């Protein structure tokens, strides 16, 4: 469905996506995780060609949607693509909802089939747990709570019945019960409509519960990818191991949280060799000289670390 090859994106002089390959098959949910600022949103926006041209530039690579490179599409082609085939749920919902139109108007606009619009809108609002506003046609986005706005975004994204949906941190503002409801809804749509999903999140717990495949990103590149079960049970990259190790638990009240030590590297000043080197507990001398290539571990499991095979 979607295949990203060798994607490189720059903001000014900083290259923040430094050669990313990633694929989403029909009916598959692929997770993209990584720390704040590592380039996840930039990959997502690129995949729908939504990078603001005044700020960023896709330097090279291919974005194949059903085999055709959308980087070569004209404005009309893109419009069709984004209206129906691909939909996008933005990380900050309020900034992407239109403040001057009501929620109903915006949902109606997004609907693929315009007949029986009111019924369809009620149905969709109910599925995201917003039945309480389905009877109110005059509600504007700023009159909703943060989590409600986020759910309106999700409702809009599925209203157009897309083939691929890119979800950027879709449940960050939601409490667990609503979050579970939304995740179940997404899983159900995936089954029923054979929807393909690129699921971007900083929260490994959520990605674990949703994705078939997981890509772990660090400093603009994928450092580990594989089927969920491999990543959960046998993470090979030290960064992935650190991420899994720092999942919080209720057992350690008032204790300091465990973080991966060290600082996120700056794109303007990346280490020469492995980008995780300064923070890595397992580093050896040779990691410092050259960035490791991504290597096959087993089956469909890959990691970008010179010691991946020995670190079990």
């Amino acid at each position, binding site marked *: 469905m979607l295949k990203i090859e060798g994607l490189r994106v720059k903001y000014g002089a900083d290259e923040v996506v430094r050669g990313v390959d990633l694929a989403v098959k029909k009916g598959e949910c692929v997770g993209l995780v990584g*720390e*704040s600022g590592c380039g996840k949103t930039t990959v997502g926006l690129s995949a729908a060609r939504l990078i603001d041209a005044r700020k960023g530039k896709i330097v090279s690579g291919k974005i194949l949607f059903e085999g055709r490179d959308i980087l070569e599409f004209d404005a009309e082609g893109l419009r069709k693509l984004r209206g129906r085939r691909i939909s996008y749920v933005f990380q900050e919902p309020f900034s992407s909802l239109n403040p001057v139109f009501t929620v109903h108007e915006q949902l109606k606009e997004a609907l693929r089939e315009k007949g029986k619009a009111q019924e369809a809108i009620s149905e969709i609002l109910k599925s995201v747990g917003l039945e309480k506003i389905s009877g109110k046609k005059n509600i504007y986005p700023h009159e909703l709570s943060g*989590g409600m706005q986020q759910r309106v975004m999700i409702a809009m994204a599925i209203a157009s019945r897309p083939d691929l949906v890119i979800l950027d941190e879709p449940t960050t*503002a939601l409490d667990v019960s609503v979050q579970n409801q939304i995740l179940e809804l997404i899983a159900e749509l995936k089954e029923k409509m054979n929807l393909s999903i690129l699921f971007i999140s900083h929260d490994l717990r959520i990605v674990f519960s949703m994705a078939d495949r997981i890509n772990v990103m660090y400093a603009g590149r994928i450092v580990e990818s594989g089927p969920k079960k491999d990543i959960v049970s046998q993470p090979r990259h030290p960064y992935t191991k*650190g*991420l899994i190790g720092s999942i919080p*638990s209720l057992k350690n009240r008032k*204790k300091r*949280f465990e973080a991966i030590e060290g600082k996120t590297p700056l794109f*303007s000043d990346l280490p020469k060799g492995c980008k995780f080197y300064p923070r890595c507990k397992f580093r050896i001398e040779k990691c410092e000289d050259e960035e490791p290539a991504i290597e096959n571990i087993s089956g469909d499991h890959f990691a970008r670390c010179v010691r991946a095979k020995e670190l079990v």
Partner: protein
Amino acid sequence: MELLKVKNLKKIFPKHKVAAVDGVDISISKGEIYGLVGESGCGKSTIARAILRLIEVQEGSVLYKEQDLLKMPYRKMRAFRKSLQMIFQDPHTSLDPRVKIGEIIEEVFIIHDNLSQQERRNKTLETLEMVGLGEAYLGRLPSELSGGERQRVGIARALATDPEFIICDEPVSSLDISVQAQILNLLMDLQKRKNLTYLFISHDLGVVGSICDRVSVMRKGRFVETAPCEEIFASPKHEYTKTLLNASRLHFR
């Protein structure tokens, strides 16, 4: 010592028949971390905004050091705003899109302190570094940051005034576990070192459970249960609290 006391707070928005906040009482002692949890849309942010008078309420009082913030003239309120800060849920809308990050933070020092330009610069950088953002961010606009970086600018701005009391509205929701840990450690360290007080709104029970002293569980504009944190997690009394806890168990390993 009781630092903040909210009495019978009530807010009804136009177009709504039911109150978004329906008679809420809160009492927070100095040095306490007070958690507020509840489902999306139950009124948490409305309480936060009402305390700081960002919205007008129909009923209730907000006593901060025994003075009613809601009745205070705005001039006087401004003097309090230095020690009373808020970290907003949606950083995108709370940061001025035309102002560079460095200036957003420096502004705080211009308003509140009498410092030389060099001192202000240093403090700005120091504050940004506390939240894991350095020099490279000074000259950027909010739109030139990632979501989690913007959230941290909001935190840095709140910390810059050296406040006594901070309302944190979902302060770490878009941060990955590792950066989240750094921020929560920072908030806990500051709390210990300076005896800060927090009203901590979060949907993440794991986070609330590990840092808060007391918690109120909110539903449909009302508090259904308030208790010390250990108690709520060990023996929730209200059905809704139980549901919330059960739903979150799925996420703990």
